[in-house]
């Protein structure tokens, strides 16, 4: 049996599919960056709470992290998109569902909140590796708790955890592909759409793979620049 399949790589660039792919890439970038901003700041916030000296804050942040880490991202996304608008009751629900681009917002928020739980764990690990000495030194100079976290602990922890953060930022762009399930027309969605239009899904998905590959390399390059820029002198570097 020979291969009865005729490859047609032009589905990656010919009209209108090339434009579809570019639109998909643009949306993947948007999703990734917006979610990254949410995940970064919320992750620092929740991670700091995880290490805070107040029991209630620790409890709240632990529940947050455990829930978001132990439920598949796909289920979280469906929850935000299908279930959450229903919470507001019938009349408001119809108004919410009428918002154009609701799936896009759900994807950004969902991806951001999910990744924040993972960033928070790294931030907590960063705090744990700093040690008690610096914390006590900061307090003994007369800093308040807030000043100590803001000026000493968070900047130090962030510089320590840059390598695992790189992995998380890579994962954000990869996970943004799940947004296709609620109809956000990002790269993976577009490659699937090209398949339903042309039956050449193999070429389209292969092309999409290289898009993610290039995107991943760009993230790694950027992060390694940030890492050298912000490395702590005197520690073992690479």
């Amino acid at each position, binding site marked *: 049996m020979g291969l009865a399949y005729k490859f047609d790589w032009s589905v990656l660039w010919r009209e209108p599919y090339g434009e579809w792919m570019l639109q998909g890439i643009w949306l993947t970038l948007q999703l990734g960056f917006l979610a990254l901003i949410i995940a970064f700041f919320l992750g620092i916030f929740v991670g700091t709470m995880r290490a805070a000296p107040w029991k209630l804050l620790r409890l709240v942040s632990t529940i947050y992290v455990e829930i978001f880490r132990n439920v598949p991202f796909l289920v979280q996304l469906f929850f935000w998109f299908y279930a959450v608008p229903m919470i507001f009751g019938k009349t408001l629900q119809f108004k919410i569902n009428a918002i154009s681009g609701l799936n896009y917002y759900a994807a950004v928020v969902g991806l951001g909140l999910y990744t924040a739980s993972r960033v928070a764990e790294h931030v907590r690990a960063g705090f744990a590796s700093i040690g008690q000495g610096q914390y006590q030194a900061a307090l003994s100079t007369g800093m308040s708790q807030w000043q100590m976290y803001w000026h000493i602990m968070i900047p130090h922890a962030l510089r320590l955890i840059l390598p695992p953060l790189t992995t998380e930022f890579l994962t954000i762009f990869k996970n943004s*592909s799940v947004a296709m399930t609620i109809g956000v027309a990002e790269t993976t969605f577009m490659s699937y759409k090209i398949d339903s239009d042309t039956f050449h*899904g193999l070429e389209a998905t292969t092309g999409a793979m290289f898009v993610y590959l290039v995107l991943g390399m760009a993230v790694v390059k950027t992060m390694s620049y940030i890492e050298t820029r912000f490395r702590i002198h005197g520690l073992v570097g690479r």
Partner: protein
Amino acid sequence: MFDAIINNLSYLLKGFLINLELAICALAGGIFLGILVGLGRISKNVWVYHSVTLYVNFIRNIPLILVIFWFYFIMPILVGKPMDPFISAAISFVVFEATYFGEIFRAGFQSISRDLVSAAYSTGLTYTQTARYILVPIAIRRMLPSMITQSIITFQDTSLAYVIGLQELVRRTTIVDSMEVRSIQLYSFVAALFFVICFVGSRISRYYEMKSREANIL
């Protein structure tokens, strides 16, 4: 209150069983292939090393959904007839997870002292025997917490087989939801099912981590 769940309970749970089955296939294949990938990543043979490294770096930069689609598209071309989504999904999971388990095994192998391997060779063990009796058992024991964590992630990932129409829990939930329109309770139920298993799994992982730290083998 829970009417939509109760009315469709057996239908939904059968879907969850498919998630479990898929996870078991993915783990069995992924860990076995992962051992080979891990060995390839520490291989002194440049051809083996570079081809395995290329495979790992390529797959790890690609979303799982895309890998699932890719195999879903290529399998019918290779086999010549439409493919069962379960088998297609299982193959993509094995190929995908093997790279993650491979990196875990590489870390495990690299934690083993070179002297131990030299000792094994000097007693006359071949490469295969050294890998089978020395490297793999020690690596598994040391890397057990990471392996459990990765297994939990794999289990969560099985929900993504949704995209090729596999009748697993999330797909069945969307079907039930389209008839009953009870999104809040249905998706909370799905989240709770996954949460229980993954939470227990993460505790087990942490238990082994503590235990091995106490026993000082880490």
